[in-house]
């Protein structure tokens, strides 16, 4: 019987990408480049999906290449965190944790939809944050709002505030879905990938949440158009 052997052809070939000794130095260089984060420049300058892929490849060797990606995604990540914790200072901390994990884990990024990967990390950072704080959530069904409250005319600011309040009082899972759709600006497919649900299930859940929000909003505001 012939004993099969592992093919030796690959044994001595170097891996496609290996960490370089100056990777740590690159991080220090990245640090120096912090000053280069031009606060006056628009965040979206010269950014495209192709450019993103190129920068991500570069950033695996030279973290300073990550700066444009940070600029591009910052608002979405920050607003997502802000929606989830409703505290600007905490949102900043969480946002920083998210990008820290992205930067330190970038060498494990395997390509594919970067936004989904990024917000998967953000999702877990927020989940851990809540687990640490053990913040209770209130179900939409148990909102302690007076049923007979009606506002004849809601000023825009008031409408926004009421909507924000209604969203804030959703269950954790519901608010997560809303945050990923409205703030992170993801699609149902991307959200499903993060939460381990099918895109169809996410769509249906979002549909139900928004319908429920609408009914609650209508009940409180008396806005006949909605």
């Amino acid at each position, binding site marked *: *019987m012939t*004993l*099969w052997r*592992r*093919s030796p052809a*690959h044994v001595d070939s170097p*891996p*496609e990408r*290996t*960490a370089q000794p100056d990777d740590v130095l690159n*991080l220090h260089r990245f640090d120096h480049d912090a000053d280069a984060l031009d*606060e006056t420049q628009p*965040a979206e300058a010269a950014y495209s*999906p192709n450019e993103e892929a190129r920068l991500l490849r570069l950033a*695996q060797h030279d*973290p300073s290449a990550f700066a444009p990606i940070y*600029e591009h995604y*910052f608002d979405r990540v*920050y607003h997502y965190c802000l929606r989830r914790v409703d505290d600007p200072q905490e949102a*900043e*901390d969480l946002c920083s*944790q998210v*990008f820290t994990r992205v930067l*330190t884990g970038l060498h*494990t*990024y*395997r390509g*594919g*939809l970067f936004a989904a*990967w990024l917000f*998967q*990390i953000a999702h*877990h950072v927020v*989940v*851990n944050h809540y*687990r640490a704080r053990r913040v209770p959530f209130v179900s939409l069904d148990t909102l302690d709002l007076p049923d007979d409250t009606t506002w004849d005319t809601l000023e825009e600011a008031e*409408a926004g505030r009421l*909507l*924000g309040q209604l969203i804030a009082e959703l269950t954790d899972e519901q608010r997560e879905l809303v945050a990923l*759709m*409205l*703030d992170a600006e993801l*699609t*149902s*497919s*991307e959200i*499903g*990938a993060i939460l*381990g*649900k*099918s*895109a169809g299930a996410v769509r*249906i859940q*979002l*549909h139900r949440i*928004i*319908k429920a*929000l609408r009914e609650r*909003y209508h009940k409180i505001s008396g806005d006949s158009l*909605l």
Partner: protein
Amino acid sequence: MNATPSDLLEVYLIALRDDSQVPPPPGLDPALAAFARKLVVEQKREPAEAAVRARVWQKTLANVSAVSSPAPRPVPVNAPAPHQGMTAVRPMPASKVRRNRSAGFAMAAVAAAVVVIAVGILTLSNRSTDGLIEEPIFGGPNRNADAGQSNASTQVAAIAATATARENEIRETLTAVSNQPQASPTSTPVPDTGLNSTVLPPTVVPPGEVLALSEEEAQPLVVGQKRTGEISAERPVALYHFVADQAGAVLFEIVPDGFEPMVGYASEPTLYVGIEPVGAVGYSVEMAQPGETFSPAPVLTAFPTTPTLVGSATVTATPLPVSSSAGQIATVTPVPRSDSGQWFNAPLTLTIYGHMNPNSVLPLLILAEQEDVYVFVRAFDDTSMGRFTIEPRYVMPLPVTYDDVLVGELTTETPYMVYTFEGNAGDVLSVEVEGFEGFNTNLQLGNRVETLRWFDDDSGPGVNPELYRVPLTLDDTYFLVLSATLPRTSGRFQMRLVQEE
């Protein structure tokens, strides 16, 4: 398939991101559309102040600097070459000795540790189990650009003109919507069509079956390249060879046409040994062998049905000599592990099958850099046959750190989660998993340069996996894979990485 209200609502929500005046797609409830618009407009936040952005950036950099080993680590000079690692069984702690194999089975240790059998979970040809690949929002026979124009098409054009490249999918979808017959606003959302949860029993292959495989038959598999194969009466097993060009969790996506496939792995194509629990029966021991003899002769290690990780470091496994013929039934009485009676102290029947057990779900395993693996594909029931495609790809891991508590859900579409973390030599790691409502999972741990994997199925409470005090021997990037144990099952889980003292 007509667009459901939830489809239409999503399309509108996404279109509103770029143009708050965009008209809703036809078929969406006007009142709901008006509210959706109000919701998006009122809840749209202004861009964060530049000072905030800069502050977070500085904080991020400080965090990165504080991480002890933030950059990808080079492979240590004195680390075993990947091919050497394949032949050397790494010492296991006593608590995990039940997973150890005899020297004769060292070459099969990887395979035994990751008995991951695909049982038709990838039969939805247009879906990806990766979960990170977008699927079309909806499609169907009416996605036809030649259909008659309508006011809706004009509205769609307005959307298209303002959509960004990122919304190409949405724009395409809107076009499809406008060209479809009017979607019924009262149509019912389509519920998730998960596969049924029936667990198929294993089939015993008649004694004496020989898998006619040879090294020359192993077709190379390359990431991103889909191969077509066929199972027939003459060729009941297809054999492939894959070499990992980087470390990570590799998924072998099998899309069968008309039969239910099984997939197995081996570090050597000459033998395959895997051990998996089969309900109340105990464990099945599976073998696939190309000839009548092994060299050296195989010795299977038996272990009980309900092992735990508590107890002394007593050697507990019982070697079980096995003849070369398949279909053998053997019985062994394991030695009690400790006074607390953690070991199953009753005769344990081991049934030797000539094929892989379908109890594991995923053709997903962790490979080190340059590690190679042979992949078997065959029909589940040994009678059906047909064509299939197979394609390897890396699954993107989620970076985590020690003391993270991870809460998630495994579904029929995403039946695994892959995590990665940076570990240091000397770290002692435990991973605790709790499946909610009895959800049964298994756990794999591996790194970039070692090839012996940690695998656990039921060492935790109940059917939960657990890795207990695993000593990390290298500064390296480590990978964790949590999978559903039973095919086509879903459930939520909680997992915790603990750095032990």
